């Protein structure tokens, strides 16, 4: 059992409870995700909703199963603290909206069992569970995980009704070719390998402007970058996250993108394309800011975020996969203990090196 389960009431004074709980924070993060999720449902129809629901259900199911196997005495409390639900939600945001059911179930298993409970449950995991599942799924099943559908309103096709949506989820119905589409990053990567440079490949309707509106192919979390950004700004003002990580991630991505684009616009995507495509917004505000897997100090979070942004840009530009946010987050998760070792918070009453502060005694006492 983990040592850090709910501590007894604080013994030494003065301590006051801020009133915040794990479930309250998790609930507010989920509220921040609602607009983008609803927008995604409108874009991609019933299959997207079913996949989202099934991903969350399978995460909760595997959480309950793990807790039972470990002989936990407070299964209900842990199950409904919202952490497993948030993991499932975030995972669903990164999956292709029309993926078959087994992607959701396998993803839930990897995220909760291998990504989280094996390390000891909530607060103990080294890697972001949703990203572990995302990467494992992408490496394991490259074809279903890169099969994107065009957004229904833009494609001018009537979306599948309830029953057909279920059939898409069950994988009975193959996605018609007319509806498949590539995300911006995937499209430019494919064109680049064919020798078509950006100036030509982007001449069509794949322009970066589409990103702002959000009617484009992609996962729930990458179509509506603007709504994700709005959710992130809400979390900033609600005090759930601090500015350090998101700003550093976006800066780490934007700065090399700006330099690259300025040097050779035909081979390096523009800053706006980088910031508004793929998981950049979702990663910066919702994934990288995970309390458990990011450094403790503001300075540490800046280093962490810059690393994620830079690695994402490197993978997107020169790597084999079109999107690198998940890989970048996992790599920097692995570095988090190192960052925390070198950038420590100052202890109260001591200087940065840990020596007691030289406070002069009050005279004439």
């Amino acid at each position, binding site marked *: 059992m983990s040592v850090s389960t709910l501590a007894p009431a604080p013994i030494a004074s003065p301590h006051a409870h801020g009133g915040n709980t794990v479930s309250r924070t998790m609930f507010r993060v989920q509220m921040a995700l609602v607009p983008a999720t609803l927008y995604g449902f409108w874009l991609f129809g019933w299959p997207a909703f079913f996949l989202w629901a099934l991903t969350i259900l399978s995460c909760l199911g595997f959480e309950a199963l793990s807790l039972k196997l470990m002989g936990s005495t407070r299964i209900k409390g842990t199950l409904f603290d919202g952490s497993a639900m948030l993991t499932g939600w975030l995972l669903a945001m990164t999956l292709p909206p029309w993926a078959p059911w087994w992607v959701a179930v*396998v993803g839930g298993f990897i995220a909760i069992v*291998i990504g989280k409970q*094996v390390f000891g449950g909530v607060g103990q995991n080294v890697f972001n569970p949703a990203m572990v599942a995302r990467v*494992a799924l992408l*490496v*394991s*099943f*490259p*074809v279903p995980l890169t099969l994107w559908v065009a957004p229904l309103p833009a494609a001018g096709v009537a979306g599948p009704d309830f029953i057909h949506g279920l059939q898409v989820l069950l994988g009975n119905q193959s996605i018609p070719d007319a509806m498949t589409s590539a995300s911006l990053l995937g499209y430019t990567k494919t064109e680049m390998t064919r020798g078509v440079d950006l100036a030509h490949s982007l001449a069509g309707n794949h322009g970066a402007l589409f990103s702002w509106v959000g009617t484009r192919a992609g996962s729930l979390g990458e179509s509506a970058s603007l709504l994700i950004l709005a959710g992130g700004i809400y979390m900033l003002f609600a005090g759930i996250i601090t500015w350090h990580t998101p700003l550093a991630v976006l800066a780490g991505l934007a700065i090399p993108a700006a330099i690259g684009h300025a040097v050779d616009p035909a081979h390096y995507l523009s800053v706006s394309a980088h910031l508004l495509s793929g998981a950049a917004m979702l990663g910066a505000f919702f994934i990288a800011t995970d309390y458990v897997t990011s450094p403790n100090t503001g300075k540490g979070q800046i280093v962490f975020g810059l690393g994620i942004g830079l690695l994402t840009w490197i993978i997107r530009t020169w790597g084999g996969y079109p999107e690198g946010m998940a890989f970048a987050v996992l790599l920097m998760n692995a570095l988090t203990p190192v960052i925390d070792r070198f950038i420590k918070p100052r202890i109260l009453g001591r200087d940065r090196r840990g020596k007691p502060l030289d406070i002069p005694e009050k005279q004439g006492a």
Partner: protein
Amino acid sequence: MSDNYGSIMKEGLWGQNVVFAQLLAMCPTMAVTTSGTNGLGMGLATTAVLVVSNILVSAIRHTVSSQVRIPVFVVLIATLVTIVDMAMNAWLHDLYKVLGLFIALIVVNCAILGRAEAFAVKNGVVASAVDGLAMGLGFTGALTVIGLIREFLGAGTLFAQASNLLGPAFAFLEMKVPGYGGALLMILPPGGFAILGFLLAGKRILDQRMEAKAAEAVGCAVHAAT
């Protein structure tokens, strides 16, 4: 200890299993177990080396001084591995093409020198042979189980190309799950570590249950006696 062949076998196969208890020989375990056939072939080759090296080390244990024993053991093991390597290249060429690199690396397999140091130098020839056989079979079993699970999850087959190793008579072992493409990750190293982790956890649980049962039985016996 050295006279009780039953307990030596039991330790080698389960209690002190090279992979699941001692966590030795992780390099071949991770690298080779992408399929059940590969695991089985590697395990059998290692078993052959292990039995003969244990016998030889045990036989010369009184004539070699302790200062030079390690180089002598390594020369012995290297010779044996070279023989196995050449034999596999000659008679099991298809399997050799898959395992080739790792066969040569049996020389540095810590399990072999480990058994020479931990057992063969202290025990008689027959006991050492039994120990080598038990450890080798335990290693083979572990590699085959990990290989089968990884192969099944990762490629949807079981014992693919088993006839290359065991002869055409064993072609019936080869199975394929229709319509399953496989999760590539399981063939890659992370899948190997994940499977090994789950198997280790399973063995620990089994051991705990057996211990609890044994303790209960002893408790009952004591209770009945008093």
